[in-house]
C-alpha cells in the first residue's frame, strides 16, 4: 500500500503555468494502469524509493510521489492506485482517475501486463485523447515471453503512434529505456479516436478535446459524478445529448456496453499481427488453485496459514521470544540503566529527569514501548502480510471468504482491510477505500474499531494471557462473537444494496526477498512516522498528569468503572493509557500481570474490554478523515458501550459460572 506523505497528494502533477522549456523534456511522469501490473515496482525502479508493490489488486490507495534525480534535472514521478477502466467503481479508482485527468503536460506512463494487451489497450486508446505525452509500458515481459505471447514492440509503437517499452520491473530490465522514452515522449495525435456514431454522441456534449472529451464520454456511459459536473456546465446541452443517446442506444448502460465493445474490436484490429496467436496451454497454477480454492482443502489451509504465520510467528515468536529478549535483556539490563545514569548525571532537576527516564518518561515509556514491544510485533506482522500479498494468496483468501462475509453485509474484498487491521487498524481504515459502497466501508470501519485487535495489542494480550491457555480461548471466542454479531446487525440495520464480489486473480508468483523486505520496511517506516509522535505525546501528557496530580484524579474517576467490570483499581491506569494507544493499555496490563496483581478472570475481563475499547488516537483521526466526524464519534461511543457491557458480562460470568478466580 502506498501512502502519500502530503495532504496535497492528489493532482500534484497539475500543470504549472507556462509551457515545458524546450530541451529539458518532460519532467513530470505519472504511472497509471490496472491493479497488479507492476506500477509500484516500476515506481521504485524509477525513483529509487521503494514504496510498496503488491500482488493484490487494490492495496495502493493514494497517489504517491517521488523524484528521479539521475540524468540532469530532477523528475517528479507519481504512482496512482490501480484502475481497470476510467468508468470508476471504487473510491481509489476515482482518486486515480482524478490524477490522470489532471496530468496535462506530464507524461502518462500506461503500465500494462504484456500478456493481457487485449484487456489493457482500450484504456490506452482513451488515454490517447488526453493530449498529453503518453508511453505504453508492457511490463511482466518475462512472463509473456515464457507464454509465447510477447508482443512486437516496434509494430505496436508504430500502430499506436506513441513510444512503447517492454520492461520487467522486478529485475529492472527495460527501465532505463523507459526513462529515456518518457523524457522525450511527444504529445500524440489521437489516431484512434472515438468511432462513429459514438463520436457524434460525445460531440453533442462538448466541443472540447482532452480530459473534457473523456469526461463527456464517461458521463454518457452513466458515471454519476461526472454526469453531474458536465450537466452543471451546460444543462440544456447535456439534456439534449442524453435524449439523443437514449433515442439511439436506449440507456447509459447500453451506450457503455456498445462503446466498450466497439473499442474492443478496435483493440483486436490494432493487435492483429502484434501478438502471436496464444497457444492453448493450461494455466500453470491451475492445479495449485484447485487446492487453494476448493473449500475442503482451501479452508483448512487458511487456518494453517493464520496459525503458522500469525499465531506462531507473530504471536509466539515475535511477541513472545523477541519482545522478551529486547525488553528484559536489551532494555532492562543494558539500555535503561545506562540512560538513567546518563540523565541522572547531566540533568539536576527531578521533574525533568522524570520526563526523560521516569515512570512515564519519554524514553522509558515512549521509546521503550515503541522499540521493545511494538517494533518486533508490527515488523513481524508486516513481513507475513507482504509474503501473502506478493504470492497472490490474498485474492484467493478474498474469494474463499466471500460467502461468509456476505452475511455480514460485506464482500470478499473486505478481507484485505480486515486482515491488515490485525497489523495496524489505522492503515486498514485507510484501505477501506478499496471497497465499493459506503455501507461496506462503514461496516469495516466499525468492525476494525471494535473487534479487530491490532498487532501491537494482539501481541501484548497474547503474551499476558499465555499463562492461562483457557483465557486465550475465552478472549478469542468473545471477540469472534462480537465480530459476527455486530457485523450481522450492521448488515441488517444499515440501508443499501448488498455488495457484489468481483476480482481479478493474479497468477501465483514466488515472492522475491527484495520486494518483501522493502515493502515491510516501508510499512514499518510509515507506522513509526505515524505513531512515534503519539507515543511521545502520550508520555508528555502522562508525565504532566503525574506531576500535577491530574493523573491520580483521573485514575480515581475510572475506579468505579473498573469495579463495574470486576477489576481491581490498579487496572485503571492501563485503561487510561488505552485512550492514547490501544496497545499502551495492553502493555499496562502486561506490567500488572508480571507483578501478579490480576488473576486469570480479571485478566481475561481486562483483555476483552481493552481490545473492544476505543480505537487509538491515530485510528480515530483517520476515521474522522475518511468517514466524517459524526460517524467517527458514533463509532467511538458505540465501541465504548459495547466494550464495557461485554466486559462486564464476561467478568460476571467468569466469576459466577466459570469457577475460575
Amino acid at each position, binding site marked *: 500500500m502506498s501512502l502519500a506523505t502530503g495532504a496535497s497528494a492528489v493532482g500534484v502533477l497539475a500543470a504549472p503555468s507556462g509551457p515545458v522549456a524546450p530541451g529539458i523534456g518532460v519532467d513530470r511522469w505519472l504511472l497509471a494502469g490496472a491493479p497488479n501490473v507492476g506500477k509500484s515496482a516500476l515506481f521504485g525502479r524509477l525513483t529509487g524509493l521503494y514504496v510498496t508493490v503488491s500482488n493484490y489488486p487494490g492495496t495502493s490507495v493514494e497517489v504517491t510521489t517521488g523524484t528521479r534525480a539521475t540524468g540532469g534535472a530532477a523528475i517528479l514521478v507519481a504512482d496512482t492506485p490501480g484502475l*481497470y*477502466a476510467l*468508468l*470508476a*467503481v471504487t473510491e481509489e479508482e476515482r482518486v486515480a482517475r482524478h490524477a490522470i485527468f489532471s496530468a496535462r503536460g506530464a507524461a502518462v506512463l500506461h503500465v500494462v501486463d504484456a*500478456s*493481457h494487451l*487485449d*484487456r489493457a489497450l482500450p484504456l490506452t486508446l482513451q488515454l490517447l485523447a488526453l493530449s498529453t505525452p503518453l508511453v505504453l509500458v508492457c511490463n511482466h515481459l518475462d512472463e509473456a515471453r515464457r*507464454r509465447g*505471447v510477447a508482443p512486437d514492440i516496434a509494430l505496436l509503437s508504430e500502430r499506436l503512434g506513441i513510444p512503447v517499452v517492454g520492461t520487467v520491473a522486478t529485475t529492472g530490465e527495460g527501465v532505463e529505456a523507459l526513462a529515456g522514452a518518457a523524457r522525450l515522449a511527444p504529445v500524440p495525435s489521437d489516431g484512434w479516436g472515438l468511432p462513429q456514431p459514438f463520436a457524434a454522441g460525445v460531440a453533442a456534449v462538448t466541443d472540447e478535446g482532452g480530459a473534457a472529451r473523456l469526461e463527456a464520454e464517461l458521463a454518457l456511459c*452513466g458515471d454519476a459524478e461526472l454526469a453531474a459536473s458536465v450537466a452543471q456546465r451546460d444543462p440544456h446541452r447535456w439534456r439534449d445529448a442524453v435524449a439523443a443517446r437514449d433515442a439511439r442506444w436506449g440507456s*447509459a*448502460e447500453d451506450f*457503455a*456496453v456498445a462503446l*466498450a*465493445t466497439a473499442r*474492443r*474490436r478496435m483493440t483486436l484490429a490494432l493487435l492483429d499481427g502484434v501478438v502471436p496467436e*496464444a497457444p492453448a496451454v493450461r*494455466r500453470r497454477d*491451475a492445479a495449485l*488453485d*484447485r487446492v487453494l*480454492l476448493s*473449500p475442503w482443502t482451501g479452508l483448512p489451509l487458511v487456518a494453517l496459514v493464520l496459525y503458522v504465520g500469525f499465531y506462531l510467528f507473530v504471536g509466539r515468536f515475535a511477541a513472545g521470544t523477541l519482545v522478551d529478549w529486547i525488553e528484559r535483556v536489551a532494555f532492562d539490563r543494558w539500555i535503561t540503566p545506562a540512560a538513567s545514569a546518563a540523565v541522572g548525571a547531566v540533568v539536576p532537576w527531578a521533574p525533568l529527569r522524570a520526563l526523560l527516564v521516569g515512570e512515564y518518561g519519554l524514553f522509558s515509556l515512549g521509546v521503550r514501548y515503541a522499540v521493545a514491544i511494538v517494533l518486533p510485533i508490527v515488523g513481524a506482522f508486516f513481513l507475513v502480510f507482504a509474503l501473502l500479498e506478493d504470492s497472490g494468496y490474498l*485474492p484467493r483468501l478474498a*474469494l*474463499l471468504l*466471500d*460467502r461468509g462475509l*456476505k452475511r455480514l453485509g460485506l*464482500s*470478499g474484498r473486505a478481507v484485505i482491510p480486515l486482515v491488515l487491521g490485525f497489523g495496524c487498524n489505522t492503515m486498514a481504515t485507510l484501505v477501506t477505500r478499496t471497497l*465499493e459502497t459506503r455501507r461496506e466501508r462503514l461496516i469495516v470501519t466499525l468492525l476494525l474499531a471494535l473487534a479487530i485487535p491490532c498487532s501491537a495489542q494482539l501481541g501484548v494480550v497474547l503474551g499476558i494471557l499465555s499463562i492461562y491457555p483457557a483465557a486465550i480461548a475465552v478472549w478469542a471466542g468473545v471477540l469472534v462473537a462480537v465480530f459476527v454479531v455486530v457485523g450481522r446487525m450492521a448488515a441488517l440495520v444499515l440501508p443499501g*444494496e448488498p455488495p*457484489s*464480489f*468481483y*476480482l*481479478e*486473480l493474479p*497468477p501465483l508468483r514466488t515472492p522475491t526477498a527484495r520486494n518483501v523486505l522493502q515493502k515491510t520496511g516501508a510499512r514499518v517506516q510509515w507506522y513509526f512516522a505515524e505513531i512515534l509522535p503519539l507515543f511521545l505525546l502520550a508520555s508528555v501528557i502522562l508525565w504532566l498528569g503525574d506531576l500535577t496530580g491530574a493523573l491520580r484524579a483521573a485514575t480515581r474517576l475510572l475506579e468505579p468503572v473498573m469495579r463495574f467490570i470486576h477489576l481491581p483499581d490498579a487496572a485503571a491506569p492501563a485503561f487510561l493509557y488505552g485512550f492514547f494507544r490501544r496497545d499502551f493499555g495492553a502493555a499496562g496490563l502486561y506490567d500488572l500481570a508480571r507483578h501478579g496483581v490480576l488473576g486469570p478472570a480479571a485478566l481475561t475481563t481486562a483483555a476483552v474490554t481493552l481490545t473492544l475499547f476505543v480505537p487509538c488516537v491515530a485510528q480515530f483521526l483517520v476515521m474522522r478523515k475518511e468517514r466524517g466526524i459524526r460517524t467517527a464519534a458514533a463509532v467511538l461511543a458505540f465501541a465504548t458501550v459495547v466494550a464495557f457491557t461485554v466486559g462486564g458480562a464476561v467478568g460476571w460470568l467468569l466469576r459466577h459460572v466459570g469457577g475460575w478466580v
Partner: protein
Amino acid sequence: MNCATCGSASAACGNCPIAPALALPETLATLAVGARATVHRLASASGADLRKLLALGVLPGVELEVERRWPAVVVRMGFATVALDAGLAEGVVVTREQ
C-alpha cells in the same frame, strides 16, 4: 441461491435437464466447470453491476472458460483469470461452445 425456474439449488444448473427444452438464455451462472463459451450480451440488473463486468473485461464477443463455480464463479479469459459472484454471473448471457 436457487434457480428461478425449478427452485432447486443453482449449483446443479450446470447439468440442468430442462434448460435446453425451455430455450432459456444460458448465463455464466449456469455454465458447468470446464465449459467454454462466448459472451453474447450483458443483461445486468444495475448500472453498478455492469460497470464491474466492464472493469473485469467481460464484454460481448469475449471467449471464456469456466474454471470453478464455488465459492464464486472463476473464469479464464486468455491469460487473465477473474472471479465474480453468482449475482454478477447471472447478468452475463453466453453462447456455449459445442
